């Protein structure tokens, strides 16, 4: 089954087979980053614009490197220095950029649905690099890929996602991704940060990390933002990490061989102690490495042209 969509907006609309085909494609891209010359000409001559309205270092750099390794020409647009500040609407910004003849758009925006909105008005393929609290498909894809590389399979695994589920696009995309590939997903956090109806999306709910850890094959820790304190989602960071932070003591409850993940950046000492972040079960750095391969795969798959051709001699 091939991936034949024109955009990557989220994982909710994809089938398990489509997600599998993206992961399989990513396999082939891992090796490229290990070559002496880390470049292939497949996107040569194509212009990819990274339209980032929200600050992001790691995701933007990851996309940029992926694009450059595929020999594409990359243009970066960071919201603070740009027309958004001058009051230009999103639609006009995108249309203006497209008129310069770009071939693909990678967009991150704080408004849920921004990527879909752009995909509707633009001709070129759009990749969602995060739209508000809605979805972050390439993050979930790299998480899935990392688990696959580490554990061989995804079906049948128990995945535990811990933290601020309410505001997390990473959590949502991962719930879709892991469920569609046959894993069982549980979300865990203070009740104030678990959105209503999350069960309908396919996740079980737990308010007790210690209770849920022993059954987890994969533990994904999400970042907690300090801003949540003033909206009273929990009393203090100290209490949050007492109950929901991963430290050496809690890790004793986990299975041996558990896979510990984090989309980054980590608040050391809050979600995770340095001991766990740097410990033997953590695959956090691999996530970053595989993020490149996954993004290259997505860029490759979306870069197809118009006519069909026979694939033989």
């Amino acid at each position: 089954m091939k991936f034949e969509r024109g955009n990557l907006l989220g994982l909710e609309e994809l089938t398990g087979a489509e997600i599998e085909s993206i992961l399989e494609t990513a396999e082939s891209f891992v090796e490229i980053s290990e070559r002496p010359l880390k470049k292939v000409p497949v996107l040569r001559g194509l212009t990819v614009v990274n339209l980032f309205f929200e600050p992001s270092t790691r995701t933007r750099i990851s996309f940029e490197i992926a694009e450059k390794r595929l020999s594409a020409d990359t243009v970066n647009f960071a919201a603070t220095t740009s027309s958004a500040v001058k009051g230009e609407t999103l639609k006009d910004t995108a249309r203006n950029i497209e008129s310069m003849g770009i071939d693909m758009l990678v967009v991150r925006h704080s408004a849920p649905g921004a990527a879909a909105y752009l995909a509707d008005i633009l001709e070129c393929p759009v990749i969602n690099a995060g739209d508000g609290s809605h979805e972050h498909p390439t993050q979930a894809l790299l998480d899935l890929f990392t688990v696959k590389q580490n554990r061989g399979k995804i079906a049948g695994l128990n995945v535990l996602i811990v933290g601020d589920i309410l505001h997390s696009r990473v959590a949502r995309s991962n719930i879709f991704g892991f469920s569609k590939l046959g894993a069982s997903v549980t979300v865990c956090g203070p009740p104030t940060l678990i959105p209503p109806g999350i069960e309908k999306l396919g996740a079980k709910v737990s308010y007790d990390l210690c209770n849920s850890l022993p059954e987890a094959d994969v533990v994904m820790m999400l970042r907690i933002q300090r801003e949540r304190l003033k909206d009273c989602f929990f009393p203090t960071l100290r209490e949050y990490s007492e109950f929901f932070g991963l430290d050496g003591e809690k890790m004793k409850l986990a299975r041996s061989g558990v896979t510990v993940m984090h989309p980054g950046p980590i608040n050391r000492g809050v979600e995770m102690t340095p001991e766990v972040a740097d410990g033997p079960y953590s695959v956090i750095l691999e996530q970053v490495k595989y993020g490149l391969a996954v993004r290259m795969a997505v860029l490759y798959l979306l870069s197809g042209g118009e006519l069909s051709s026979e694939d033989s001699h």
Partner: protein
Amino acid sequence: MKILIKNGRVIDPSQGVDEKRDILLEDGLVSPAGGAARGADGDVDETIDAGGLVVSPGFVDMHVHLREPGREDAETVESGARAAIRGGFTSIACMPNTEPVIEGDEGAEFILARGREAGLARVFPIVAISRKLEGEVLSEIGAAMRAGAVGVSDDGMPVMRASLMRRALEYMKMFEAPVISHCEDISLSGSGCMNEGNTSTLLGLKGIPSESEDVMVARDIMLAEMAGSRLHVAHISTRRSLELVAEGKARGAGVTCEVTPHHFTLTDEAVKGYDTRAKMKPPLRSADDVAALRQGLKRGTIDAIATDHAPHTEEEKDQEFDLAPFGVIGMETALGIACSELYHGKVISLPRLVELMSTNPAKILGLPYGTLRDGAPADVTLFDPDAEWTVDEREFASRSRNTPFSGWKVKGRVVSVIVGGKVLMRDGAIAS
């Protein structure tokens, strides 16, 4: 240590028991050999003859104010725990509005330690919802609950911000314990000091309308349903609030409520004469409200009787009505008033009374008391439902004297109280 309680009328709603039977207490627990011990007086350490008395699981007062830390002149954990025993209460839960406020694991541990030192009634901390009771941000509820708190409340104050109340209700889903709400809209109460009605007009005092309570009860029940969480309405006082609770229960909401003896006994007419011992929040209400409360006690809408024991020194209460602090004590008159007004007043039966004063409050707070089943902790209260006595506050163990029932003749008296198999009060006298 074996204690045999014989010839008593054992009323234990948790087991559906109301009959004459003997109870054996062994090593601090109710012994399964109770029935068989009949006649085996020889090998027990003490025999208590409970003839003519009701043998009930120890009463639980889920709403008291102990003024420690900060106002030890009015009450301390120890004096409050002693007053509790005199009132038949083997367990009490105290509110956090002390100086400083009881919050976090340190606050919870402080109260638990002081209670253990006193060695009288068991004392459990209810901790603050908001830091310093300022109503702005959550206090470290999790740490406090882990340390042994039994619930959270900003009592004394309402949580005015609905968004904060919502978060508190959601957050408490992590624990099997209630959010206890002091339901009052401050902007509606304003500077009122008694119920708003004919009497307040007559006396020229500013009134607190019933709606000030009703709107908050409505709001809190809705938020509790939204969060899927447990709400306990403190000191309910109006007909409308009761209707809202009844409707909420019918819908399956996790809401419970309590009433104080002064609210189901006195009306706002008690304020005539400007006696500050009739001043408390919520205020004494109208005769219609009192009638509704009694109906609620009868029908089951009300789950518990809790005293809202609020000690104040004589100097504090000895002021113009407007300026005196709100609050009356109640632990040492609770049984007398409840028995006289409700049992002898033919509103409820004795088993229902025990349910209101022991079974239900224990259940709401998730305490393993309020029951005399085999193996339960030996917390027992023996009372004489027919004994007549006159309320003389000078005999109270409480450090404060602010009771509205001074000089009342009541029928129903606590005789003996046992906590964890230790006899702390015997025949009306605290054991030394």
